[in-house]
C-alpha cells in the first residue's frame, strides 16, 4: 500500500498537520513582530534623549 495514501480519514490527518503549521507560523510571527516592536520603542526613546545609566545603547546586542 502506498504510504502517502491517507485513506478514509485523510481530512483528520490533513487538518491536524495544517493546524500545527498555522499555530507554529503564528507563534514565530508573533515573536518576530514583538522583537521589531521592542527595538523600535527603544530607538524612539533613545532618539528622544532617554539613555541607559551605563550610557550604552539599549538596542546594541551584538
Amino acid at each position: 500500500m502506498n504510504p502517502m495514501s491517507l485513506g478514509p480519514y485523510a481530512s483528520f490527518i490533513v487538518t491536524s498537520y495544517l493546524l500545527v503549521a498555522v499555530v507554529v507560523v503564528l507563534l514565530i510571527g508573533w515573536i518576530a513582530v514583538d522583537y521589531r516592536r521592542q527595538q523600535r520603542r527603544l530607538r524612539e526613546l533613545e532618539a528622544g534623549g532617554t539613555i541607559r545609566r551605563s550610557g550604552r545603547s539599549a538596542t546594541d546586542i551584538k
Partner: protein
Amino acid sequence: MTLIDLANPTRFLSLATRALPWLAAATAVLLAIGLYQSAMAPNDYQQGATVKIMFIHVPNAWLSMFVWGVMSVAALGTLVWRHPLADVAAKAAAPIGAAFTFLALVTGALWGRPMWGTYWEWDARLTSVLILFLMYLGLIALWRAVEDPSRAARAAAILTLVGAINLPIIKFSVDWWNTLHQPASVMRMGGPALDHAFLIPLLVMASAFSMLFLTLQLAAMRNEILRRRVRTLQMIQVTKSSRRPA
C-alpha cells in the same frame, strides 16, 4: 563561557542573537526530515494512516509538560536563587507551552474521532491536560495583570510550582485510572513498544519540536529583556520630566 556569565542579560542577548540563526536552521532541517519520514511511514495495522497524527500529537504532548517543567525550574531560580534571567525565562515560556498544549489537545481530538468515535472524553489523561492548558492561560493572565515584573514573577513562580503537581498526574493518569487513553508506549520500563518504522519518525519529530521550542524560547527571552529595557527607559523619562521646573 560559564553558566554564571549567562546571568548577565547583555551577555545573554549577545549569545542568543548569535545562536538563533543556527538553531532556526537546525529546526528547519529536523522538521524537513521528520515530515518526510512521517509521510513515508507505513500505515498501522489498527490505526491505518491516522498513525501519522501521532507524529505531531506526541511531540506536542511531551513538550506541553516539558515546558511546564522548565518553568518550574525557572520558578525555583526566581524564588530561591533570584537569578536575574529566571523570571524572564518563565514569562517567555508560558505562551509557547500554551501553544504546544493546545496543539496536543486538538490533534488528540482529531485522532480520537476516527479511532475512539469521539473528539473528547472526560477521562483522567485528557482532563488533566486540559487543566494544564487552563493553568498556562492563568499564568499568562497573571503576568499581564501585574505591572511590576518582579512582583508578577514571585506570584507566577508560586503558581507554577503549585501547578507542577499536575505533571505526575498527567504522566501516570493512564496507570492510576481506567482511561480511554492508551498507556505510555515510548517512555516506559522495558523500552519502547513501538516498531522502528514508527519510533524513528516520532523521535525525529520530537527532536524537531524540541529544537523549535529552544529557538522560540531564546527569541522570546530576548524580546522580554528588551521589553524590560523599554520599561526602564520609560521610567527614566518620566523621572526626568517630573524634575523639570514648571
